[in-house]
């Protein structure tokens, strides 16, 4: 196995030490492939594979590809130590035969063992890209998928469904949950199937996730509606108070959040219709109406004390 040594890193391997100075931290000289004791200069290990550049490039123009990079920068952690390469398409005229077909056609895959996993990673990256998820969520999703894939307990399910469910779980675990409908919007899998896979994965990995709260979605929904910070804070306060006072028992937190945003926006200068909020939140406008009716009677208590009303509380629309 080839180990990657980075120069000046701490040598944590207990087995290789200088015989005279066992406490000394060995310095790796990767150019010559040695591990040298700094105290006495003894070369302790040798034949370490040099991973530095094969040759040095001096050209200033960046147009040509850097020939010192061999192989893709794949992370070995996820793809079983991927060292395979593929022969690329020909660039010159000599690579095409008389009919115009490329001479070397063999693009057969080399990493057949984890083809499906690499495909799923690509799919996850695509999905995450659509909703602008940061790299840490994507990494977490990849890890979850790898764990589920290796366990093989959900082998019969479509990989895309497992990937979508892993993405949902990763968002939840990072503390920024996305609704199922948001994940559906970037995936070809139905909400029902994602929900099923979600439950199966939680059981397979023996983990659990925190319950969603109304505050988790406020910033996203309000930004998508271009509402000012005051309205967002008011809506957060309204939703939290509504749940605390148990005005909306049994309602999904998304519906309560949507109704709170509606109430806050209607009381401010930036009014939004139920339909607009429903489109952003993925909630039907009748659902917003139902939840709004439940919180409307206590509206004066729900607003934060320092809120500036553009429309006074008693003039709020009553549906």
């Amino acid at each position, binding site marked *: 196995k080839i180990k990657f040594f980075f120069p000046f890193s701490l040598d944590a391997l207990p087995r290789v030490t200088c015989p005279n100075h066992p406490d000394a931290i060995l310095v790796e000289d990767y150019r010559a492939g040695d591990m040298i004791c700094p105290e006495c200069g003894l070369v302790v290990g040798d034949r370490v594979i040099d991973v530095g550049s094969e040759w040095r490039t001096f050209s200033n123009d960046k147009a040509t590809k850097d020939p010192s990079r061999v192989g893709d920068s794949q992370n070995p952690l996820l793809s079983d130590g991927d060292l395979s390469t593929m022969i690329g398409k020909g660039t010159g005229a000599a690579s095409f035969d008389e009919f115009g077909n490329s001479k070397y056609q063999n693009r057969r895959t080399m990493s057949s063992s984890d083809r499906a996993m690499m495909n799923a990673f690509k799919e996850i990256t695509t999905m995450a890209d659509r909703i602008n998820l940061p790299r840490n969520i994507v990494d977490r999703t990849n890890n979850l998928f790898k764990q589920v894939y290796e366990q093989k307990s959900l082998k019969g399910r479509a990989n895309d469904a497992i990937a979508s469910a892993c993405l949902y779980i990763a968002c939840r675990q990072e503390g920024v949950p996305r609704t*199922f409908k948001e994940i559906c919007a970037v995936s070809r899998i139905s909400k029902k199937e994602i929900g099923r896979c979600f*439950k199966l994965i939680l059981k397979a990995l023996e983990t659990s996730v925190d319950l969603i709260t109304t505050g988790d979605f406020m910033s996203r929904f309000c930004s998508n509606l271009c509402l000012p910070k005051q309205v967002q804070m008011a809506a957060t306060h309204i939703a939290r108070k509504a749940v605390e006072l148990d005005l909306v*028992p049994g309602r999904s*937190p*998304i519906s309560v959040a949507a109704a709170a945003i509606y109430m806050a926006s209607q009381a401010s200068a930036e009014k939004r219709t139920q339909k607009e909020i429903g489109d952003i939140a993925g909630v039907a406008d009748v659902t917003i109406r139902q939840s709004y009716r439940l919180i409307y009677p206590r509206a004066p208590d729900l607003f934060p004390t320092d809120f500036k009303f553009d429309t006074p509380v008693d003039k709020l629309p009553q549906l």
Partner: protein
Amino acid sequence: MDQNNSLPPYAQGLASPQGAMTPGIPIFSPMMPYGTGLTPQPIQNTNSLSLLEEQQRQQQQQAQQQAQQQQQQQQQQQAVAAVQQSTSQQAAPGASGQTPQLFHSQTLTTAPLPGTTPLYPSPVTPMTPITPATPASESSGIVPQLQNIVSTVNLGCKLDLKTIALRARNAEYNPKRFAAVIMRIREPRTTALIFSSGKMVCTGAKSEEQSRLAARKYARVVQKLGFPAKFLDFKIQNMVGSCDVKFPIRLEGLVLTHQQFSSYEPELFPGLIYRMIKPRIVLLIFVSGKVVLTGAKVRAEIYEAFENIYPILKGFRKTT
């Protein structure tokens, strides 16, 4: 009180307790009589220091074991009596007669399998702050009503679905959609799926007897149409019951404490799905206090599951 006169064999070799007890940390507590710290005590699950939870757990365990373990309780009483004093102090059985339930509930919190009930109970004095979970206070007084019974029966002969569909009343048959005849009768109001192999599924009855009666009626219909129908292997496959605990429930609290059994996703389903291990029943618990129990093969499982869940739900009652 019936007492077994002969001590069971396990009670005699009490120096070495059964394998259900781990020879773990001896618990030396001022509450316990001298010398008990030397006997291996079951390792208590001290993850949660909440007394309420402990009570709930004990009550749950108590209620679980209660119906079956009456006899074993008697045997335990004798075991306790035999252990607590070697020769004298026959007054102890009088006192221990009060406490076997305590011992029972305490030891059972750590014995996961009902079959391996540890028979050497920890001799905890009655001073320890554990609520004696007497059965009378725990019975909820609410009986779940059965809503649906699904049963199967084998008529024992191949059937021609087309003739059945054409000649029988209230039968529909759409082979492109589903490969069975769907027949309905009004009394008891049930629906049956009749397959060409001769097997039949009967759904919709409200009691076991009604399900059997309805299946017989369907078999009679098939017989009258000219097929040599028999009534083989009638088996109830699933029973669904529902009831109302009459108070609102804090589902968020329940899912926090019973994470390994519960699944509560408001986006997917408004109720909490509680998968009880013993008996193997799935309960749908709603905020309003309504509970649906399903997955039972016999009526007693529904009742037992509800008796198990009721004290837990009481602990999560909404106070406002």
